[in-house]
């Protein structure tokens, strides 16, 4: 049964076979197969011209990916930890995200920045962040955040084929997640920017991404035992943000909680609630967000666990606000 990293690897192999313009760049991605083992076997299969172990130079890496994409190749960059993402920002935000617009829509920048993100791995404040929200304010890029192996494969394939820059976030605590899925279906590129309903329900909508989707599903199981029917929506993408799918769920349940592994201020959860206020005010009985503290991710295991909005907190919060 394929796990999340195997699904990502299948997407990379499939797309590299399909299009010889696709190249993989990053620190330790070739000979070592990536620190999270996602790129294992690629250099043996496609050679060092297409799978490059680069210096630890994120500015050069991002700049080269941008320039390479502008000049006709399709780079996939592995950014070892999402926390290194700020080093890439000039090439990503100032150049790659603007090129289509400035060139009067004549040229796009087809590149993917893949990155391992998220807390819960005891990596401390600067190897545990989720940088998606830093980027969802940047028009011209997509921010994709899959929750399951099948989604990881089909969305990564779509990201690689997309003509514009895509930031593809991989939650560290999902890499070993297994799923029995149909390989042929996952080989079809998914639609970027499409949320999906992972579980149907009628009393409350739980919205999240990546690891949070699994926490929400576990919470929904436990809420069912208490007589609360929870619907779970997996956004799969922070930009574009599929407000329509969420609004449709809210129209059914009238209550919604957005579960975000990250600080509240400027986060996607509060942004989503704002969007729903603008589109669906009449449908709202109650909406709220569960976040980490508005502070850095702690290292100490009990502190880190207390900071994460896991299934326990979701169940507790929903039980408190939704009368069964």
């Amino acid at each position, binding site marked *: 049964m394929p796990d999340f990293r195997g699904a990502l690897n299948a997407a990379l192999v499939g797309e590299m076979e399909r299009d010889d313009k696709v*190249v993989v760049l990053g620190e330790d991605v070739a000979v070592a197969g990536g620190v999270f083992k996602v790129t294992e076997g690629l250099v043996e299969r496609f050679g060092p*011209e297409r799978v*490059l172990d*680069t*210096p630890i*130079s994120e*500015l*050069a*890496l*991002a*700049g*080269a*990916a*941008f*320039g*390479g*994409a*502008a*000049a*006709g*190749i399709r*780079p996939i960059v592995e950014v070892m930890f999402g926390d290194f993402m700020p080093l890439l920002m*000039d*090439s990503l935000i*100032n*150049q790659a995200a*603007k*090129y*289509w*617009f*400035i*060139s*009067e*829509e*004549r*040229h796009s920048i087809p590149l993917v920045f893949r990155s391992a993100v998220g807390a819960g791995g005891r990596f401390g404040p600067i190897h545990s962040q989720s940088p998606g929200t830093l980027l969802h304010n940047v*028009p*011209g890029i997509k921010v994709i955040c899959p929750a399951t192996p099948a989604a990881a494969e089909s969305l990564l394939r779509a990201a690689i084929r997309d003509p514009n820059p895509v930031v593809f976030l991989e939650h560290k605590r999902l890499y070993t997640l297994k799923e029995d899925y149909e390989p042929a279906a996952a080989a079809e590129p998914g639609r970027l*920017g499409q949320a999906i309903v992972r579980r149907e329900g009628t009393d409350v909508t739980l919205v999240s991404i990546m690891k949070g989707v699994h926490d929400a599903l576990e919470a929904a199981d436990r809420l069912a035992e208490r007589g609360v029917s929870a619907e779970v929506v997996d956004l799969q993408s922070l930009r*574009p943000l599929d407000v329509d799918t969420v609004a449709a769920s809210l129209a059914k349940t009238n209550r919604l909680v957005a579960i975000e592994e990250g600080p509240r201020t400027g986060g996607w959860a509060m942004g989503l609630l704002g969007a729903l206020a603008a589109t669906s005010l009449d449908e709202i009985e109650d909406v709220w967000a569960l976040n980490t503290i508005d502070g850095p991710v702690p290292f100490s295991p009990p502190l880190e666990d207390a900071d994460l909005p896991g299934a326990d907190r979701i169940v507790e919060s929903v039980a408190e606000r939704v009368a069964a």
Partner: protein
Amino acid sequence: MKDSADELRRLLERMTSIRRFEEEIQRRFLKGDIPGTTHLCIGQEAVPVGVSSTLREGDLTAATYRGHGASLALGVDETALAAEMMGRATGVCGGRSGSMNVIDRGHGLLGCFGIVGGTIAAATGAALALRGSGNVAVAYFGDGTTNQGYFPECLNFAQVFKLPVLFVCEHNLYGEYTPWEDVTAGANLRARAEVYGIRADTADGNDVLAVRAAATEALEAVRAGQGPAFLECHTYRQVGHSRSDPAKYRPEGELEEWLAKDPLKKARAALGELGVTEEELDELDASMTEQTARCFAAASAAPYPEPAVLARVEEYCNA
């Protein structure tokens, strides 16, 4: 003799056209015809003209925000460039870029980059795509850029992968308003490339033929797959950093010294020695002046883009 005179004449024509363009931009800025800011390359024309004269179809150039000269040297249409400065629909980028970020792939212009060092990154990446093709990427940048993180990272990266890229340093003595030696340790920019094992040369950046010769030689090695090359061109910005800069920081006499070494004057003198008459050179000058006037007249008569485009852009960004 005639061949070299014809060649130098063409180069002088290009440099003169850039000079007139920049002067006209400056004039119109002062009149309020052109919005925003701009960075003029008056005094530095020989560098892009010399380098571009050696480039081939399929090569890609990354120019700085002081990039009008590099753009025109590649053959970017002067009327369309003027229209871009004025934010018109007929501009090179439809009025979306303005002075600092022009892209014109039809003329091999990968882009002009508003962030110091952006050219180095873009050209290094373009060279990654151009590996083995016989084509090269060129990055222009100033002396100040050698203190930017992109410089060491990308030079190392380019050398490790033996990428076909020419790094052209337009050493004009100032990083914006600040003399380069006040903020640069080591005082040897070439050494900063040599330390990576990169081939490095220096040229008189005000002598278009010297630039051309140095670029030709460096690019021969780059095209042959020997990896990147670095070319330091000594030149001087005869105007301020941007339109709001009166350049009062120059020591007395410095500007005059460099005006005497003006690249257009140098080329004129060299053509005189090759037997071209003053009259012919004046004629060349007058015809470039007329051409610039025609281009700017056409550009300023062009329409502005329709605001309806914004909705389409948003739709695309959210699709």
